[in-house]
């Protein structure tokens, strides 16, 4: 089957990579659009390293054939920072040691972003559920949970201001 342009928006920018419709969104992001922030871990939906948002919904990009995001908005880790200014969640991961080797971090941050957009006052159970599909082999998760808790607090303060 021939490659064809797939129009989509990635981090607010219109793109139209010319690819096979069944190509994994993960590969299109990394290899065709050179957005290598999204990582591949297991390639079978178990680890969440490749998680991105599609129209605000968390998905594992290794399981999405690119044709299914035609006309949609994809948000990757590269879309989180505003220029040189990091997003609150990113800064919280740095400040609280939520990132070690870094492979799981983009997926963790996107999963945390989706949680913060979906639940107005997430508690610890919400965080555990939201990150259950993201595997980390370094941190033991405690510092990741602390980073997300801090981000929740900072965003709440930010909104109150």
């Amino acid at each position, binding site marked *: 089957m021939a490659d064809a342009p797939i129009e989509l928006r990635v981090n607010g920018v219109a793109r139209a990579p010319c690819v*096979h419709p069944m190509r994994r969104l993960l590969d299109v992001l990394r290899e065709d659009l050179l957005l290598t922030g999204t990582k591949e871990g297991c390639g079978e939906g178990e680890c969440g390293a490749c998680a991105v948002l599609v129209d605000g919904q968390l998905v594992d990009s290794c399981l999405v054939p690119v044709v299914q995001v035609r006309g949609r908005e994809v948000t990757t880790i590269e879309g989180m920072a505003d220029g040189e200014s990091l997003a609150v969640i990113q800064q919280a991961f740095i400040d609280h040691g939520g990132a070690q080797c870094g492979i799981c971090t983009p997926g963790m941050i996107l999963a945390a972003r989706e949680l913060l957009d979906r639940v107005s006052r997430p508690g610890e159970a919400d965080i555990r559920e939201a990150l259950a599909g993201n595997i980390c082999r370094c941190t033991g998760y405690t510092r990741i949970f602390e980073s997300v808790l801090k981000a929740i607090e900072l965003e709440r303060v930010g909104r109150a201001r």
Partner: protein
Amino acid sequence: MRGDLGDFELVTARTLREACDRVAEGYRPLAGGTDVMVLLSSGKLTHTKWVDISGVEELRQVRADERTFEMGALTTYTGVRRHPLLSRELPMLAQAASETGGIAIQNRGTLGGNIGNASPAADSPPALLAYGAEVVLVSRRGERTVPYATFHTAYKRTVAAPDELVARILVSRGDPGRVHYYRKVGPRRAQAISKVCFAGCADRDGARVRDVKIALGGVAPVPVRALEAERAIVAGEPFERVSEALGRAIAPIDDVRSTSAYRRRVADNLLRDFLRHVAHPS
């Protein structure tokens, strides 16, 4: 991603008619991709012609009339969890949905895919069996409705003909007084494939169980109803009899995920937990 996409074809169906035409031509349906894309990634996908049905609106609807829920095949686990009526009236299914993968999988995986893929370890089938669900299959030849209890014929096999798609799943709306129970046991609490999953519901008259339904996944080539155990419970038989009857309903195997003996033990423990829950619903 191993291998080359050159041999694969993925066409898009916009309407149910187009989807049925493609399936009749030998294309297989791809919806949330949570099973198909795993095989593609690992180089194990042997079938090459696929039709993307994820945009077919007719397969996405969830409807409720006075007696029945109709869930389109494209209903996702997230869709079940967030639907106010489904989550309230079908707690076994909602619990199964919340224990299937993580959020990213729940956002994509569909009920139609979960039963159509026909993995014996799938999480929603025991709930659907215990609810006495029906499945509407559609093809160019028309529609037919089959009891879900007859849908799975053997390991990874279903009654659906090669040209048929799962269109909808029908479930009767619940009795308010019914006690519901769903529990999955895997190697860990989240994001794991089941060793055993157990769905049960019961109607009681005071302390007596008037009606009970029990179904399990992960313990046989297909999801199973434990009819003999259900009858033993309604007849007021002692736990040992019920347990023996459940043991006869299941045929677990030793495999990479668990052993037959462990699965039998877990199934029995879940039966005990279910009956405790029926006696004292929390």
